């Protein structure tokens, strides 16, 4: 622990500076340290780096020896995690023992070099470790910036049901089907305009005052409408909705709501 603070490991913004420098380390420090590693590859990478070793020429003996010390500490503390480290240790020992044996047959083609495999894995892991660091450096939504989030008040607009003329027809058909009053309610198209005109005339007379008969007719919109309006007046009279009066022949004809007859005297009384 003699070195001044100098980060040795990538721990995302938290440089690790207090790592043991050699094998002679109290087990407690080991435990703390091992928690910082993400597994055997990570630890192995650290050891290789720490000893300034050529990653492509790992001296298995030294690394394995050190490694076993760590593994022993792990085994005492956390058995489950130790399994992965033990596996790695076994692999390192296998590599070491192979290298101790004299090489008899030179390269039997496909016999793979366990060292090469380990190096490949270490390199791949290191690559991903660096990539994870790089990704963590990217500006991240929520952490480093906020999305726009203005308000759109849906409730401000009450959505009204949409109705088409066809819906009306459907409703009418359903009605008829249910009531089986087909004949009674058959309506001819021309009758429609009469009833529309009846509504218009009733509205015109809504004030209760007398209107001159001629005022009920819009002469600018053609003969058919005049005829329809006239039929509407007759229909309204028949239904007792309007009162038509004429004091003398050839005098103006006056029309008003039938209800106004009842209402007028009362209105005048007040």
């Amino acid at each position, binding site marked *: 622990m003699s070195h001044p603070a100098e980060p040795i490991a990538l721990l995302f913004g938290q440089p690790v500076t207090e790592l043991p420098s050699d094998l002679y380390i109290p087990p407690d420090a080991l435990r703390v340290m091992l928690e910082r590693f993400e597994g055997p590859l990570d630890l192995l990478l650290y050891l290789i780096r720490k000893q300034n070793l050529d990653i492509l020429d790992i001296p298995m003996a030294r690394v394995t020896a050190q490694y076993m010390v760590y593994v022993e500490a792990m085994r005492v503390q956390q058995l489950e995690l130790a399994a992965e480290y033990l596996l790695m240790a076994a692999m390192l020992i296998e590599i070491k023992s192979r290298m101790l044996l004299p090489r008899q047959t030179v390269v039997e083609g496909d016999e793979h070099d366990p060292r090469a495999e380990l190096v490949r894995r270490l390199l791949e892991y290191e690559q991903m470790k660096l990539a994870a660091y790089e990704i963590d450096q990217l500006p991240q939504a929520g952490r480093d910036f906020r999305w726009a*989030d*203005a308000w*759109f008040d849906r409730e401000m607009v009450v959505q009204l049901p949409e109705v088409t003329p066809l819906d009306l027809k459907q409703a009418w058909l359903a009605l008829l089907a249910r009531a089986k009053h087909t004949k009674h309610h058959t309506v001819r198209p021309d009758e429609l305009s009469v009833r529309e005109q009846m509504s218009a005339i009733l509205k015109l007379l809504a004030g209760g005052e007398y209107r001159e008969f001629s005022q009920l007719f819009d002469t600018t919109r053609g003969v058919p409408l005049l005829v329809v309006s006239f039929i509407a007046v007759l229909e309204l009279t028949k239904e007792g909705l309007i009162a038509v009066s004429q004091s003398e022949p050839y005098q103006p004809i006056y029309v008003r709501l039938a209800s106004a007859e009842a209402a007028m005297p009362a209105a005048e009384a007040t």
Partner: protein
Amino acid sequence: MQSSLHDRQHIQTIIETALLVSAEPLNLHDLKKLFAEELRAELLHEVLEAIQQAWQGKGLELVKLASGWRFRARLEYQPYLERLNPEKPPRYSRAVMETLAIIAYKGPLTRGEIEEIRGVAVSTQIVKTLEERNWIEVVGHRETPGRPGLYATTKAFLDDMGLKSRSELPPLAELGQLIVPEVADQ
């Protein structure tokens, strides 16, 4: 002077940004928290007013609600925004549709007459729904006991249907040839 104007602009941008990214309305207390230095409430009010001015004629407006200030889409842009995630348009009940159809084809007529055709009572709610939509109105009264109102469809109804007159409603003349199903479908 120069620097104070610059500061003012900076404060305004910070407040505008906070209001645009905040999911909740922000009150003066919240807005003050944005700055390390203490800001006068007066200055905040001026800045908020300046932001409101700056957003004149844009799609959002800065509104003051009970719980604070917040940007929201102006009413006139809602129809466009609705299209992004259209909610299923609500539908009128069969009772409402039948009542409307009866008034459209047979009006003016009284509620009692509508009930006669439908064979069931017409609730006040149904009439109110259609009146509030401004699709039906009372155009007179029948001179019978109680002087019931005579309902007819309005001009607004025709406009909403895209019709020039009631005579453009789908003709029912061919009804005679239709095979009317025993049961009202669905």
